[in-house]
């Protein structure tokens, strides 16, 4: 069902876990499948996302998407990170089964929520 890349991210998720004193936190729940993803970010003074962590309650696709997203985001400027779409996440995973595509939303949306939280805090 899942390709090797998805399975690799599922089995060895990058940046899973908590973060102390994050600069931004986003949490998104997906009504369609009940999954919930949380993203924590640490942003430096140049606006670069220096660290990122996730926690996900969800299926294999949701976990792998979260892991992939954090890998894509780390080291990026917040202005760039905000542009990352669920489609890019799925593409970087080499594709997801059709009925699982919506799971990649979750990670991208949680990141956006974290970025908004960070920006709100800056004001």
């Amino acid at each position, binding site marked *: 069902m899942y390709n090797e890349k998805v399975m690799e991210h599922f089995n060895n998720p990058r940046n899973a876990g908590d973060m102390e004193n994050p600069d931004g936190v986003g949490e998104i729940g997906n009504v369609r499948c009940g999954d919930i993803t949380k993203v924590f970010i640490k942003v430096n003074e140049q606006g670069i996302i220096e660290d990122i962590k996730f926690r996900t309650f969800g*299926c294999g696709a949701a976990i792998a998407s979260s892991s992939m997203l954090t890998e894509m985001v780390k080291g990026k400027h917040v202005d760039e990170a905000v542009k990352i779409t669920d489609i890019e996440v799925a593409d970087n995973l080499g594709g997801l089964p059709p009925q699982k595509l919506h799971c990649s939303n979750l990670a991208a949306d949680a990141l956006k929520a974290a970025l908004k939280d960070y920006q709100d805090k800056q004001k």
Partner: protein
Amino acid sequence: MDRIYMDHAATTPLDERVLEDMMPFLKENFGNPSSAHFFGREVRKALEKAREKMASLLGATPEEIYFTSGGTEADNLAIIGSARALRNRGNHIITTSVEHHAVLDTCLALKEEGFEVTVLPVDQYGMVDPNDVREAIQENTILLSVMYANNEVGTIQPVEEIGKIARENNILFHIDAVQSVGNLPVNVEKLSVDLLALSAHKFYGPKGVGLLFIKEGTGINHLTHGGGQERGKRAGTENIPGIIGMAKAMELAYSELEEFVPRMEALRDRLIHGCLEMEEVKLNGHPSQRLPGNVNVSFEYIEGEALLLSLDFKGVAASSGSACSSGSMNPSHVLLAAGMSEQTARGAIRLSLGRHNSMEEVDYVLQVIKESVDKLRSMSSIYQGKGER
């Protein structure tokens, strides 16, 4: 360790002794049983011998056995065929909320033809209350369909008692016994049943063959039209190797039942207790009235799909419930019917044990489950375990 198969409720490996019996019919005995010549007659004889064997195991007569392509076809034929035949007597059907889709969806589809369907609730263990059956019966009730044992949570229904109620009220009684042969004694007399569906691949027989028991005198409409095979009830050239294999598989299932059941129960109980020793785990299904090889447990805070993936990666094959091909991740209708929350239902996995499983495997699987659950919880957004924040 080799890969471990604990999904016997989805399908079982073909028993070697069954394959051996099938081989001549995959080779030299290839005739069409409808042919009058030697090649046909030889096969016809074997077909009827297989029918007699299965009939006698079930406590039926050979004339009451009709071969189909599997459990789904048998369930459909039983329900649609009898409902249509009895349409002039009434249009009310009773079934339960924990049936396999082959029964539940079939009953519901009959609504389009003007049938009324009552879907009975179950208790927290997935069990039907005979009193609910009694109360659901109306003047126009013609058919009652209740499964013998549930494929997801393993709960064994009080079918004997329900059968008596059906008989008292002169209502046809259909049992989906697909999960029962090999795990429970199945005798049509004792069950007061009019229609009973089986599928060979669930008891170490071949895929693509099943049967419907139709009690003598029960008129049901046939659903497919053709060469008039199975005394007009099921058209199409018979799956001969399949039928021969089913007979052998059934014979073995019956003769080995006494040895099989306690062995499975021991494995099952070790597996259940091992799981329940972990934190925030719930056993689904009935604590005692359950299939000897069925383990169904919900782990809070994680999704069953992710857990299965993790087990699969470590060589353990389990399932989230019914092997449904839709690929959808909707929580099990059985668990929801038993009153479980969607979230907890999503955390369910089913391990169904079989002939070749061992205590060592059970212990290994327990260890793998523990590791996987811990890992998944550690990254779950809804878990706040010890040592976490």
